[in-house]
């Protein structure tokens, strides 16, 4: 219980830290972005919204402390102002258009990558010195040194332009009208998701293979695994029920940690494939100097990562009684 409270406390502190960083960045930057934002939105938004923009970016008459409290209050109520590059729609409305695409693409591939990586890693360590175990680690060293987005360029060139198997960019064909009840549309969406998903999978799976393999090597040497062998249990049962279950625990924490990296990588993958998720939106916002949208997206991504870490921590506490006592 104490541990859980600690984790809640940490979640609150990190959230506050992210909000504060977000508040001070535009104020510390040269060229006073505040003036250009307020200049661009004057006449397009109501006075209350203008005041919220001033609280978020500076440039108003308020003192810093009042502006900070205003900003925190607005953020807690989910008010992030209007997007300058999307005809002054509320930022939250704009983000909701991109969010499902990212959740679908990155969410599914992340879970898939974790499951495949952990499974393969466990088997590699189980057959220590076998084919899988000697081929995978060096291969992963090379793959992890390539930028995510470059893998994306490579698969576009190979599978789309050269072989013509998959579409190059976007989330569905231009001539289709979104309709989630029609199988034809869903198939088209999946068709477009194959290459970006494959790119994220290729670049992220190696980390999980290696973590699991290294945990597993330690666990397989434990006495209770020897005991299970001595009892003559089926090897597959020992692998998954005895060794695997214990080796996966550190991976779970790693899963949360690497989530930030996966999302960062996915931003560039979305850019390469013109996939209209939040990552692509973030880069477009930056190019258009749409600071309110940019700030809100940064916060959204941060909150997503922090909440995932929190969930993984809680899951570890439930699954592994040993973590409850220690810090």
């Amino acid at each position, binding site marked *: 219980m104490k541990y859980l409270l600690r984790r809640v406390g*940490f979640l609150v*502190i*990190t959230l506050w*830290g*992210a909000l504060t*960083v*977000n508040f001070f*960045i*535009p104020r510390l*930057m*040269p*060229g006073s*972005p505040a003036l*250009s934002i307020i200049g661009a939105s004057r006449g397009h938004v109501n006075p209350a919204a203008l005041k919220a923009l001033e609280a978020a970016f500076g440039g108003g008459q308020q003192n810093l402390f009042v502006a900070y409290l205003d900003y925190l209050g607005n953020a807690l109520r989910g008010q992030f102002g209007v997007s300058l590059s999307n005809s002054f729609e509320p930022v939250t409305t704009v983000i909701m258009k991109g969010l499902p695409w990212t959740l679908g693409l990155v969410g599914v591939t992340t879970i898939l990558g974790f499951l495949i990586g952990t499974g393969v890693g466990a088997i590699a360590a189980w057959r*220590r*010195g076998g084919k899988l175990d*000697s081929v995978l*680690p*060096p291969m992963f*060293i*090379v793959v*992890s*040194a*390539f*930028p*995510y*987005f*470059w893998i994306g*360029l*490579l698969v*576009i*060139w190979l599978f789309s*332009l050269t072989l013509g198997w998959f579409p*190059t960019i976007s989330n569905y064909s231009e001539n289709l009208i979104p309709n989630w009840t029609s199988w034809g549309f869903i198939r088209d969406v999946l068709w477009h998701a194959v290459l970006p998903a494959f790119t994220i999978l290729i670049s992220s799976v190696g980390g999980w293979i290696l973590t699991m393999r290294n945990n597993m*090597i*330690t666990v397989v*040497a434990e006495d209770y695994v020897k005991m299970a062998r001595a009892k003559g249990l089926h090897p597959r049962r020992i692998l998954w029920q005895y060794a695997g279950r214990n080796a996966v625990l550190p991976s779970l924490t790693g899963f949360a*940690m690497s989530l*930030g990296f996966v*999302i*960062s990588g996915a*931003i*560039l993958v979305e*850019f*390469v494939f013109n996939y209209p998720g939040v990552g692509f939106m*973030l*880069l477009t916002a*930056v*190019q258009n*100097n749409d*600071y309110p949208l*940019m*700030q809100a*997206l*940064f916060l959204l*991504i*941060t909150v997503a*990562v*922090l909440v995932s*870490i929190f969930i993984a921590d809680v899951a570890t506490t439930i699954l592994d009684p040993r973590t409850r006592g220690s810090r």
Partner: protein
Amino acid sequence: MNPLALLRRSASSTWAFLRRDRKALAGSIILLVLFIIAAFPTWFSPDNPSAEIYSPGLGPSSAHLLGTTSLGQDVFSQLMSGTRQSVLIALLVGFFSTVASVVIGVTAAYFGGIVDDLLSLFTDVVLVIPTFPLIIVIAGYLQGTGGASFWALVFVLTITGWSYGARQLRVQALSLRNRDYLLAARARGESAWYVIGVEMLPPMTSLIVANFLSSALYAVLTAAGLLFVGLGNVNSQSWGAMLYWAQNNEALNAGLPLWALTPGIMIALLGTAFALLNYAFDEVSNPALRSTRRRSRKQALA
């Protein structure tokens, strides 16, 4: 022992390490070649990398080893002269963030108590905030003032890249803290600087080196990603800028995959060198990870 003998001994033990470990050897050779190219790019580039004077969109030939860009530049020369920036960013960010990790991680472990609690909390907060979106936001603001300069890039990559190392180093320093020889040094009344610098850091060398290498890898990949999306100085001679111009001119669609893909291969080559050395050092500090086949061969000999 006189300094010259010490140097000779460390050189010979480094050589012995490289001969034993093929990963480390391969990493060192790649790194050495790239360092030479970074130091003397003109030796390796037959043409002026920024000259737009050749027929655009040529395939590979003896005149242009990797063809030309659709702007009429020589791809191979651009690759060679782009080496310097990536190598510099890797070394500088690796160095600065390792120094930050050591200072923060070891200080936290050495002093313990409230100092440790605060520094650890700070480290963990920085660690979990996703760095790449943050860097994009910062670079986005700098874009308004003409783009992030080289040193701004080094600075931003350093403040976002130290936290993981600080956490790892703190854990290792904590495990050393209550060893007898450290307690003895404290009992002798040695200063904190002496205990940390002379007694605590030397046993941590392999972790510190591993830290430097992974920060360097992080810096190379992140800097390339930023330039690729056009954040930063896209007119610099760098692999990231090459990727940006290739993407902007739709090099893949135009049938110029060499232009679009070779900068990534160079990045990966540099990254692989750091990663190979990193794994080698990982195996030094954690013998359980060493290749099993080598161990069995040794056992057979014995």
